[in-house]
């Protein structure tokens, strides 16, 4: 057994070689309190302990250490028989944020088939924004597992490469899973509006309301003017949440032609929608909107009245 100069660490190492798994488990907990860099190798050792509880404990403390030293061990732990261990390893890997970890992660990605493991690796690769992750991530957009596809969208979105837009659009439009479609729709905001605008208009009619909301958000972020009439249609969506986002987007686009529709929304029963409508009318700051804003000064909801007072000042300034 290796010996350590630091007596505290040595005491822990001794306990870690105990026959009693309970004592080994407590020793792992004590590792957290040492500042000695050598503690890392003891954690790695504990990750391979025959006792599940000891491995679980080691996995729970891995994120207390600088994980670049243990990328390999963490990737190995992703295939542990115990779910707690696998989960903790995946989280710790995602926190690596060290470019040096990209290489082993990519290698592991190449050979991994387990969906859980693949998702964990993709989540870890995302913040590293390494170009080398692009190809494997694109490939995983066709994975059978929805969680894997969702994480692949994340990797691609963070890379912000124009060449990946067709693949993201395809996923946003046709993936079977709504959360994957929503994520892909949100990722389109790095595009030139003309490349994805029509697709976003189509997504305003997605069957899942959260995708429709996300589409309205992305249109607003891109300020895609050609979407005005589709957004006007979306202001009569069945769900107030979608109508709210569509109204926000129309405000952001400064759409004067939408003012009558916004006026209708400003009289809706749902106060959150009235709020959004008056906010949009203030942002547009066109005199056609003034009558609706004046009416809203007497709205029963104070948030609406507040925004109406603000909108009046915007209208006055623009006049």
């Amino acid at each position: 057994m290796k010996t350590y100069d630091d007596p505290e660490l040595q005491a822990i190492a001794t306990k870690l070689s105990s026959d009693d798994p309970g004592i080994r488990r407590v020793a792992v907990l004590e590792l957290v309190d040492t500042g000695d860099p050598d503690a890392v190798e003891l954690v790695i050792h504990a990750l391979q302990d025959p006792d599940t509880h000891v491995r679980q404990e080691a996995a729970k403390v891995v994120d207390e250490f600088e994980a670049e030293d243990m990328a390999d061990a963490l990737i190995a732990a992703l295939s542990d028989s115990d779910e707690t261990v696998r989960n903790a390893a995946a989280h710790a890997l995602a926190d690596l944020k060290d470019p040096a970890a990209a290489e082993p992660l990519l290698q592991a990605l190449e050979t991994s088939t387990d969906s859980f493991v693949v998702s964990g690796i993709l989540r870890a690769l995302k913040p590293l924004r390494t170009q080398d992750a692009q190809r494997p991530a694109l490939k995983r957009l066709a994975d059978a597992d929805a969680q894997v596809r969702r994480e692949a969208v994340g990797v691609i979105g963070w890379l912000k490469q124009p060449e990946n837009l067709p693949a993201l659009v395809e996923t946003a439009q046709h993936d079977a899973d709504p959360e994957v479609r929503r994520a892909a729709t949100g990722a389109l905001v790095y595009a030139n509006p003309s490349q994805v605008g029509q697709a976003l208009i189509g997504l305003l009619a997605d069957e899942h309301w959260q995708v429709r909301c996300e589409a309205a958000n992305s249109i607003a972020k891109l300020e895609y003017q050609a979407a005005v009439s589709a957004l006007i249609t979306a202001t009569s969506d069945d769900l107030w949440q979608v109508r709210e986002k569509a109204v926000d987007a129309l405000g952001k686009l400064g759409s004067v032609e939408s003012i009558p529709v916004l006026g209708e929304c400003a009289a809706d029963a749902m106060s959150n929608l009235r709020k959004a409508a008056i906010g949009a009318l203030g942002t547009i700051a066109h005199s056609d909107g003034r009558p609706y804003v004046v009416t809203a000064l007497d709205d029963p909801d104070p948030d609406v009245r507040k925004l109406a007072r603000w909108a009046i000042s915007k209208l006055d300034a623009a006049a």
Partner: protein
Amino acid sequence: MPIANHHSSVPVIVDEDKCIADKGCTVCIDVCPLDVLWINEDTGKAHMKYDECWYCMPCEADCPTDAVTVNIPYLLR
């Protein structure tokens, strides 16, 4: 002026079958911000010695063996 002990129902419960304080574990005791968990000298296990709980949960969340349960104190329930 004599001091009386008063009886109190405590919110933090430790399952003595699961608790491994006798192996040297002191996690729940270490993390309690109010220092109300102690080792019971008779059993060697952790227990709530003082009814001064903020029901903040580190003791439960950090316990390696899921032996600790934090209940909402009776006065607030």
